[in-house]
């Protein structure tokens, strides 16, 4: 049986030393859980990743919940989640305190003038890389475009857009030939097929 402290330590390490958001944690988690500690098989790990992606919430926390639960049940998942978010929270808290006293500093201000356009670019870039990975076609590209327009131009709440998408997707799957997308674990095969037709 996996000890709580080794579970905690593993997630503390992963949470505290991965920069650049949840997805940057994936290779680290794989090395830690699959190759080094042997807590999960590669298939189990990939299942955990895809489930974490399809569930709401913070991606890394979703993975932690699953791994902790698999190893030690509910208490294990709590240990894993707390371990995963503890260092980032402490780090940001320290930074928030420090940052406020230096915000009006001339040099800090100059740094942020340079950082702001870079941050916007870093957020815009995944739209294109993810579109490539999801195999968006001209038949489906209007969906994210419409969602963006609703939120950005009309000020519709993103929550409403997500709910609308879930309901539409549900209705589509229910009434529109469900045999079309019955195979394989990869969710992108639907658009691949419509390309071939």
């Amino acid at each position, binding site marked *: 049986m996996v000890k709580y402290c080794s579970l905690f330590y593993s997630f503390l390490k992963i949470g505290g030393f991965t920069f650049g958001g949840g997805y940057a944690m994936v290779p680290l988690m794989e090395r830690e859980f699959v190759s080094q500690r042997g807590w999960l098989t590669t298939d189990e790990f990939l299942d955990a990743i895809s489930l974490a992606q*399809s*569930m709401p919430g*913070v991606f890394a926390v979703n993975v932690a919940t699953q791994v902790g639960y698999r190893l030690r049940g*509910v208490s294990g998942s709590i240990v894993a989640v707390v371990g995963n978010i503890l260092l980032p929270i402490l780090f940001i808290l320290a930074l928030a305190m420090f940052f406020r006293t230096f915000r009006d500093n001339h040099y800090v201000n100059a740094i942020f*003038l340079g950082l702001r356009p870079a941050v916007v670019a870093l957020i815009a870039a995944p739209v294109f890389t993810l579109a490539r990975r999801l195999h968006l076609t001209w038949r489906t590209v209007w969906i994210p475009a419409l*969602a963006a327009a609703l939120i950005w131009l009309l000020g519709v709440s993103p929550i409403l857009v997500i709910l609308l998408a879930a309901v539409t997707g549900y209705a589509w799957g229910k009434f529109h030939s469900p045999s079309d997308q019955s195979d394989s674990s990869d969710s992108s095969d639907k658009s691949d097929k419509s390309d071939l037709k």
Partner: protein
Amino acid sequence: MLYLKLFLTFLKIGIFTFGGGYAMISLIENEVVEKQHWLTPEQFTDILAVSQTTPGPIGINTATYVGYTATLDAGYGTGGAVAGALLASFAVVLLPFVLMLVLMRFLSAHRDNPTVKVVFRTLRIVVLGLIAAAALSLLTVESFGVPGWNRRFVVSCAIFAMVFILSILPNRKRDFHFSTFHFQLNLRPHPIALLIVAALLGLLLYA
């Protein structure tokens, strides 16, 4: 009551976020900047920069920072602000955590259900729109300066173009050979490397 509002807002943000931290940004921006006015658009972009250069999930980072800043600005003092930060971080993970535990039992049996698959596929595509909206809503005077032939705007556009182009390069390792040296380099630089370059450019050009 600010604490209750913080708690409920981040509860909402947590449960309605699909597809990772970047999709969360448009939601957080909508709630925190436009609805509650806890932060200015300028402060919000700065938080994004800060949380992209610090470890951990971006959703947790922003929750912690917003919780701290909002309560401090409302005059609660440092202790109260730390409590606000912890509360917001707790709220953002609470519902997804519970839902995950409940669904781990059920969904593993239904994951190959075609209807479930179509719903998730639709959500994943719509999430692209959410991320695009987040990027578009950040195209502001605060981030880029006043449009025109002034130094701030031109420099901002140049930094944007550089970071954007480098970030959409294929995420693949390439081999390089220099006479006897042989090394591997990722075509797409790490986001932190890009942010450090942008920070240095800012320091160089504006300070």
